[in-house]
């Protein structure tokens, strides 16, 4: 085991613990429930699905709240997953840090877009 503390600590590594692992699981479970909730409404509706039925699924307040939580879950889940990929394949620290910063900025921006779409409905 190489030295990984003090001045030798890898500053762009993981949080060396349970938090990211657990958040990955909790966000995944919530997104799976959301998938089932949307799928059930699509499958239980009769006739072809046009704009009204599709938008109607997301229009109710409970569904909006669930979708909002799922957008935040997705943001967090993707961050942990992409950071895992960078830690495994991207070895130069400067490049890895740049990609991590880009990913955070990009994900927050995308989450803002998705929430904007949801809230003007």
């Amino acid at each position: 085991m190489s030295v990984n503390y003090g001045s030798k600590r890898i500053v762009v590594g993981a949080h060396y613990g349970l938090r990211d692992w657990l958040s990955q699981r909790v966000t995944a479970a919530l997104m799976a429930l959301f998938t089932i909730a949307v799928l059930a409404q699509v499958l239980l509706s009769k006739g072809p699905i046009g704009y009204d039925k599709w938008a109607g699924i997301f229009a109710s307040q409970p569904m909006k709240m669930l979708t909002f939580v799922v957008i935040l879950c997705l943001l967090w889940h993707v961050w942990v997953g992409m950071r895992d990929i960078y830690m495994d394949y991207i070895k130069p620290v400067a490049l890895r840090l740049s990609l991590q910063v880009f990913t955070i900025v990009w994900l927050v921006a995308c989450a803002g877009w998705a929430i904007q779409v949801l809230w003007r409905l």
Partner: protein
Amino acid sequence: MSESATTSAKKRPEFRNINAFTDLPSYRLPAAGWVSILHRVSGAMMFALMPFIIWMFDTSISSEISFGRFTSAFNVGMLGLPGFLWKLVALALIWAYLHHFTAGLRHLWMDVSHKAVELQFGKTSANAVLAISLTLTAVLGAKLFGLY
């Protein structure tokens, strides 16, 4: 002495990290290995295509007019690309989601059950993940391209 001299004269193979181009094609991955790397690949795909996903969410939900733009992208085409190419992108996303979803359920099950981390369950559940995700992708793909 003379023996070590002759072996060192012959160039001995050196194994360091796996080379993606020369080593990976000859590696035989078990089903659980395929599920694992495809979990990663499907996740990265969905990250890369995230703007397209939100665009679909935006146009399909915002208004009747934008819903029309949404459907015409797949039926007629968009940005100079024909509709079937956009359908292929959508199908790739459908596969990525289904694989990530089923492989994720397998992960969660392995986290809560000690029985699920045994060798045999690892094999059968990995095969089940591949079978379920690929079958559902085929079914939804046929629907997407209007085969039924």
